[in-house]
């Protein structure tokens, strides 16, 4: 069947068993692929109560039916597992080229089970799949590991997915990196890989992927490309300035969290903006597989060079830590890439530590490095390195802000939801986005339903960010459509130019389906409920649909949104109703039956 390779790998690292299994294509279409299909397998095969770093947890690395196709941005893959950071289902997405390479090798996804008794890596070269010794790569940074693996495997066209030392040391903020700089960043998925003694997966594929309906595919892809090229955001804003063009918009709107959300306006934000990055440090733009947008930045400061930093990173290390030194932010971002750390959680955890220190809750003698003071560029760079090494106080930072703040008696200073650090938006001034952050199945996350698009940017239409009206409906639609895009294997940035009908057309043409837009969105709803059920069974229930106390009880202290708090208690009942759940936030039997996941 076109779209899907039709085969997946099941690799047990405890026994060394490698199986190639046929994909049930009817099942695949029901959950689309990527995030949806991998979530289905996780819920079927893993006890929700499993300890995330136990060998019984599984790590699923999955492409979507459009990964490796001609569809614009069709290069993405998803890592699904139980998160050691949040205890929820984790699904972390990445771009680059690795996903398309796995698909061309002939596999839709890999289910990794068990634990190797020594460091290993998986080598995939079309039909040949092997588990190999990784002793010489263990302990090495991401860049060097990637270079060595490409050299040792003798195929420069292969693609490398790897963890860095942070994943090896089981940092709960560890990412899985691919193509050196792209990250399946969130939820600590790198620690799950590290817990299995799995250092890397090298993929090389030479297969050709053909769409089910060639002429139709040409037409719908051409149409999607035209929309992306004619859209000012995807054809001008993102390519010219990258994601960090958002710094000034969010700051001028008064919702740019500063000093660990103590303020919401950063007076010197422009020194760290996409405009400044382009003017001073940008070397070139970078595009992922089949991407016409090329929002990626390759930047350089002295000897430090590489991809990034992205908007969220510039915020987490910048305003969040009170730092307006873009050079320091680039260096901290580089350490995250090299150690394999989630840049959002890493920066936000340092910001939390800064506030703990500011409030005198940490004994200064414990700080075996630069003073953790808001505004210190030196601190963000060095503490990121120490976090990557799990060295001294850095070992505490490496477990994330929720555990850190709890340990020092101030859990309310962790600006997280379900223990996942919130990204770069003060939701006290954006009610819809706050609702989606509180209800996200993986915790404090902006890419489960990016309500910033309508509430701030005005796409597809402008909504009043402070109004509650209709927000529950918008959140549900955005969450469901995002689940679809993630599962197809496309980049969420396409949604600035494309609508649900465009995704339907590409899926139908490439995978030979005949879905309506309604049934595609219903698949998104199905995936959302499947994730919700995993969380409920894992003990993460509706009581965790919340926001940090600061955002609910402490009005924004200054700036354009002064005086506002988030009004979550008013929004949640409407959201639960919109989802077809009971008043407690539990999916009803009727709802699950309707979605065919009862």
């Amino acid at each position, binding site marked *: 069947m076109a779209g899907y390779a039709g085969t997946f790998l099941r690799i047990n690292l405890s026994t060394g068993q490698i199986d190639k299994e046929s994909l049930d294509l009817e099942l695949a279409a029901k959950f689309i692929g990527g995030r949806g299909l991998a979530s289905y397998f996780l819920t079927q095969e893993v006890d929700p109560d499993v300890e995330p770093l136990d060998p019984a947890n599984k790590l699923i690395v999955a492409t979507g039916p459009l990964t490796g196709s001609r569809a614009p941005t069709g290069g993405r893959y998803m890592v699904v597992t139980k998160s050691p950071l949040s205890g929820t289902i984790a699904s972390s997405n990445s771009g680059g080229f690795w996903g398309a390479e796995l698909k061309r090798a002939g596999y839709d996804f890999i289910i990794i089970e068990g634990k190797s008794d020594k460091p290993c890596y998986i080598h995939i070269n079309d039909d040949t799949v092997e588990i190999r010794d990784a002793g010489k790569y263990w302990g090495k940074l991401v860049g060097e590991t990637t270079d060595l693996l490409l050299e040792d495997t003798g195929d420069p066209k292969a693609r490398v997915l790897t963890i860095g030392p942070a994943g090896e040391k089981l940092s709960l903020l560890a990412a899985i990196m691919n193509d050196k700089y792209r990250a399946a960043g969130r939820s600590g998925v790198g620690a799950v890989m590290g817990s299995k003694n799995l250092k890397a997966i090298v993929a090389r594929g030479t297969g050709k992927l053909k769409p089910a309906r060639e002429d139709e595919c040409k037409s719908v892809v051409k149409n999607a490309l035209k929309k992306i090229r004619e*859209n*000012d*955001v995807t054809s*001008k*804003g*993102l390519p*010219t*300035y*990258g*994601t*960090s*063009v*958002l710094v*000034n*918009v969010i700051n*001028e*709107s*008064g919702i740019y969290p500063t000093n660990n959300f103590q303020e919401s306006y950063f007076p010197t934000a*422009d020194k760290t*903006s*996409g*405009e400044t990055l382009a003017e001073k440090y940008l070397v070139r733009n970078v595009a992922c597989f089949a991407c016409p947008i090329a*929002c990626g930045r390759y930047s350089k400061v002295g000897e430090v060079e590489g991809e990034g930093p*992205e*908007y*969220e990173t510039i915020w987490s290390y910048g305003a969040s830590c009170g730092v307006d030194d873009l050079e320091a932010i680039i260096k901290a971002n580089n350490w995250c890439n090299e150690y394999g750390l989630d840049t959002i959680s890493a920066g936000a955890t340092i910001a939390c530590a800064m506030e703990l220190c500011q409030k005198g809750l940490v004994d200064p003698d414990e700080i075996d490095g630069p003073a953790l003071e808001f505004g210190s560029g030196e601190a963000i760079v060095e503490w990121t390195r120490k976090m990557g090494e799990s060295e001294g106080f850095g070992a505490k930072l490496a477990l994330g802000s929720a555990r850190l703040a709890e340990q020092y008696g101030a859990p309310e200073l962790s600006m997280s939801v379900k223990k996942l650090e919130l990204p770069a938006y003060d939701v006290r001034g954006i009610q819809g986005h706050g609702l989606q952050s509180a209800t996200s199945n993986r915790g404090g996350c*902006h*890419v489960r339903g*990016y309500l*910033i*698009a309508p509430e*701030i*940017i*005005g*796409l597809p239409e*402008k909504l009043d*960010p402070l109004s509650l009206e209709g927000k529950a409906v918008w959140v549900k639609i955005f969450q469901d459509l995002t689940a679809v895009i993630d599962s197809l294997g496309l980049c*969420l*940035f396409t949604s*600035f130019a494309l609508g649900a009908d465009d995704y339907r057309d590409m899926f139908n043409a490439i995978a030979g389906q005949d879905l309506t837009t309604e049934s595609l969105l219903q698949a998104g709803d199905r995936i959302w409920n499947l994730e919700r059920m995993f969380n409920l069974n894992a003990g993460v229930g509706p009581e965790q649909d919340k926001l940090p106390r600061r955002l609910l009880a402490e009005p924004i202290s200054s*700036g*354009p*949104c002064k005086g506002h708090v988030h009004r979550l208690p008013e929004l949640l009942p409407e959201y639960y109703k919109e989802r077809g759940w009971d008043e407690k936030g539990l999916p009803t039997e009727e709802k699950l039956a309707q979605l065919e996941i009862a």
Partner: protein
Amino acid sequence: MVVEVRLFASFREGRFKEKELELPEGSSLGDLLAQLEIAQKDAKITIVNGSAVSAEHKLSDHDVIAIFPPIAGG
């Protein structure tokens, strides 16, 4: 009246980053855009004192005005 105007992204090219401008009393945001030679359709995000407003919005003394072309990120 005097307002503070902040331009971002491509709007800075050939103009300025930040400037105080004197405008006739009763000026609207649309009048300011015309003075800056920015087409209203290109000024996708216009924020006055932190709130998004449209071109018809009447400006006041000491307003802080931020003007953006179509951009997004995340």
